[in-house]
């Protein structure tokens, strides 16, 4: 008897659990102008329902509003499962969220079948279908308009402004204090040694500025270091050869070398043909420089700037002639080749630091200091972000997203 009662009890309760949620119109449905866009889409939001399931479908219907205010014929745009398109943490920043987390959000862009134009009104409705039952939402209207500011990326703009401020402040500080501390770069001691060796052996120095143009940081750093090398070369009366791939870089380097000779009081020793153009083609240039290395056997080779596949061809040929080789590049994919074939290698930002260290130009020193501060901020953000994200998972809280969202890239 007790068993029968228990069985009946389970049957009744089971039936209650198994009974589907009644089909009701979506709660809180509204159409709105999509935020942060060019005005060619509208967005729809509505609250999540406990009845959302894979068997329940949501159809989106749109109609154009005519000039006289009437609504045209509704057209089915798309159909989606009801248990989809929820706003998740990370979809929108907290300062620009079109609806609450957990609500449904669907963006309807303009398409060939249903063009959406800015300034034109549109009416939207949802039709929820389950089996042979269906229910419609009330109609909601929206007029898409283009936005002048993408508020979701305001954090990105703020960081740009802050970094610019840090940079300008650092440059100003270095102008006031030109002897700002910079860590000594190991490879720089070798520059003096290399030039001295070339002078003793009576062989030229070969200096390459890399594959980049004057728009590359590494090429600018290379030209600054060339200026310092040229000053030393002028004092020791050694021959300097600088083959180029880019005519504009060549023009800049010609001026840099000429000024270096003038600065140390040796304008007579300057040779116009120390800087010469070969070709812009990667391997033609490499073949030409390899030929120079094998014929003229420079005692010291400098590889400063950005490089690609030609790096090993240049450095290995240089190594075979017995030259002392010093490299400096921000091309991380070529670093292994430089490290294995050169006596000294300046890695990444050491190249930028070397140019600042040697020249002591306030702009270069200040920029380096500004970059270091920027990197310190990034490191602090990494530590803070990792800690907060871990904390958020452990305590099951979304509150950490108020800080984490500040560092995210939203579109």
């Amino acid at each position, binding site marked *: 008897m007790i068993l029968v009662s228990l069985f009946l009890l389970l049957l009744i309760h089971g039936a209650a659990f198994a009974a589907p949620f009644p089909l009701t119109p979506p709660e809180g449905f509204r159409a709105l102008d999509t935020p942060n866009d060019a005005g060619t889409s509208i967005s729809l939001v509505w609250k999540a329902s406990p009845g959302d399931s894979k068997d329940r479908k949501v159809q989106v219907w749109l109609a154009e509003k005519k000039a006289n205010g009437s609504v045209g014929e509704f057209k089915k745009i798309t159909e989606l499962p009801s248990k989809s398109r929820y706003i998740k943490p990370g979809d929108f920043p907290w300062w620009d969220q079109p609806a609450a987390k957990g609500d449904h959000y669907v963006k309807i862009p303009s398409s*060939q079948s249903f063009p959406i134009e800015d300034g034109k009104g549109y009416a939207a409705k949802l039709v929820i279908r389950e089996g042979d039952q269906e229910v419609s939402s009330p109609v909601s209207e929206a007029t898409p308009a283009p936005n002048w500011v993408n508020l979701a990326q305001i954090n990105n703009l703020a960081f740009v402004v802050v970094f610019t401020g840090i940079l300008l402040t650092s440059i100003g500080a270095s102008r006031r204090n030109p002897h700002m501390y910079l860590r000594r770069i190991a490879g720089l001691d070798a520059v003096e040694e290399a030039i001295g060796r070339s002078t003793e052996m009576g062989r030229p120095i070969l200096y390459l500025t890399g594959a980049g143009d004057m728009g590359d940081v590494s090429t600018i750093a290379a030209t600054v270091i060339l200026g310092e090398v040229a000053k030393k070369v002028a004092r020791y009366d050694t021959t300097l050869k600088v083959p180029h791939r880019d005519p504009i870089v060549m023009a800049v380097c010609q001026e840099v070398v000429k000024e270096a000779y003038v600065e140390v009081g040796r304008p007579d020793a300057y040779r116009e043909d120390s800087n010469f153009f070969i070709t812009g083609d*990667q*391997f033609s240039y490499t073949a030409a420089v390899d030929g120079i290395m094998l014929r003229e056997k420079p005692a010291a080779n400098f590889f400063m700037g950005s490089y*690609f*596949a030609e790096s090993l061809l240049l450095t290995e040929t240089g190594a*075979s002639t017995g030259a002392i080789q010093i490299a400096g590049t921000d091309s*991380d*994919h*070529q670093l292994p080749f430089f490290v294995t074939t050169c006596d000294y290698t300046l890695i990444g930002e050491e190249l930028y630091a070397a140019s600042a260290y040697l020249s002591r130009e306030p702009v270069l020193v200040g920029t380096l200091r500004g970059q270091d501060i920027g990197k310190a901020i990034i490191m602090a953000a990494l530590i803070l972000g990792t800690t907060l994200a871990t904390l958020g998972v452990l305590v099951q809280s979304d509150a950490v997203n108020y800080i984490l969202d500040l560092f995210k890239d939203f*579109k």
Partner: protein
Amino acid sequence: MKEFARWMVSIDRRIIFVLIALGTLLPLLHPFGLPIKVSPEVRGVYDYIENLPEGSVFFLSLDFDPSSKPELEPQAVALLRHAFRKHLRVIGMTHWLPGTGLADSIFARVAKEMGKQAEKDYVFLGWSPGTGSLVIAMGQDLYKAFPSDNAKHPTVGMPVLEGVRNLRDVNYLISLAAGNPGIEMWYVFGKDKYRFEMAGGSTGVMAPGLYPFLRSGQINGLIGGLQGAAEYETLIGQKGTAVAGMDAQSADHFVIITLVLLCNVFYFVLRGDKGRPA
């Protein structure tokens, strides 16, 4: 022994070159054919293309010149075979002017093999100056960026480009790049702005540098070097030059490993003798 060690440590480079040459030639003449293991990064590309519906727009940018042909051409051929087999609409182009003829010949050859027609199943747009600016221009209006294809036929009205106005209408883009302009440029000026899904293929040297983009989801797959091409050929079930080349690559790697280990043995023999580094 010491004299031999001394000789070996400063061996003539040409002997090393001969060993590498033999390591490359012999396996090509007598292949031993080992199974190719597929990495998740290559599988990511394969699975995405495999799940694209028929008629989807697949954009393939062959951003390399003849110097990178041995590594990147097998990747291009394998991807095109897969795309044509899935009946995708293929759009091709290149950002590297010296690679235009090579890219055109790759498209023509694979299309002929797979029975596909130009303008109907695929189009090769060719080269146009601008790199990043060109990508932005394509993102706004593909027909203004490329009024005609590489064969000088007008792009407007081409059956393969039906419904494609700009890069937003591309379902999947892969850039096979040997340097710059390449995958990073496509991401910065293309995917970041126009929101298509993309993957990359690169030479073996550049591949490790692209892992940050792969790990962060900026690209959803990466085909690295000849090994990556061989993995892709294995996935599509059509072995080509990449799989054939892996035997040679295996042998060469082993020659280098053997030489390096031997060099270290001799180095330590000399170092132990003198009590200081040789």
